[in-house]
């Protein structure tokens, strides 16, 4: 498939929807014939982004989370957007171990995981407006092509 293929997903920011979102994205990327490991990587990164939208962006209030996925050749793009509180200092927030909720069981490693498991990570955020996390990963890099 050399054409693009796209999907968008919108769902309530409830923790019970996290698995559903993970499996949807996994099912979408299955078209790229990924390895187990590649799917696990994307699912981990996606989980972190969705959890952030739920607990930080919307502070556990039920609102909408938006996921956008695009495949172009062997590249998968995943965008996760919330219209929540936003991030004051993105650079600082992305530092490993940095967290604004140290009291809960947050590790401050969410962005670090997204960075580690995907090839590219960028974060756009405006305080009071919301946050979009954009991640890219090449799938099937070990195949001759």
């Amino acid at each position, binding site marked *: 498939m050399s054409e693009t293929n796209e999907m968008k997903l919108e769902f309530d920011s409830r923790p019970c929807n996290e698995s*559903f979102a*993970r*499996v949807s994205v996994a*099912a979408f990327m*299955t078209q790229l*014939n*990924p390895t*187990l490991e*590649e799917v696990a990587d994307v699912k981990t990164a996606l989980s972190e982004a969705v959890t952030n939208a739920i607990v930080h962006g919307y502070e556990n209030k039920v609102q909408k989370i938006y996921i956008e996925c695009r495949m172009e050749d062997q590249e998968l793009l995943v965008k996760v957007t919330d219209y929540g509180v936003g991030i004051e200092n993105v650079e600082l927030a992305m530092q490993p171990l940095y967290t604004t909720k140290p009291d809960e069981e947050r590790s401050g490693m969410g962005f670090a995981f997204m960075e580690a498991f995907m090839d590219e990570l960028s974060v756009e955020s405006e305080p009071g407006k919301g946050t979009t996390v954009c991640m890219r990963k090449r799938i099937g890099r070990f*195949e001759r092509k």
Partner: protein
Amino acid sequence: IGEIRRYLRDNNVIRVSRSLRDTAYKVLYTREAYTRKYLKEPTINEIAEEIGIAKEEIVYAMDAIQNPLSLYDPVYS
């Protein structure tokens, strides 16, 4: 030699479709055992608990075997 090397490499990485099929067969087996024992269909939570896999993953796996003409095929051909 090139053919063999390619064969080995392709079979070295486990494709997700392969693992989905394995899971799906486990699910079918579990459902059958449950139905025999309790004389009713298990719900997805009961199956998920039995094999220790999230219920969402179960339906993802089941789709891989219910859809024989799908994109999963290249791996097996």
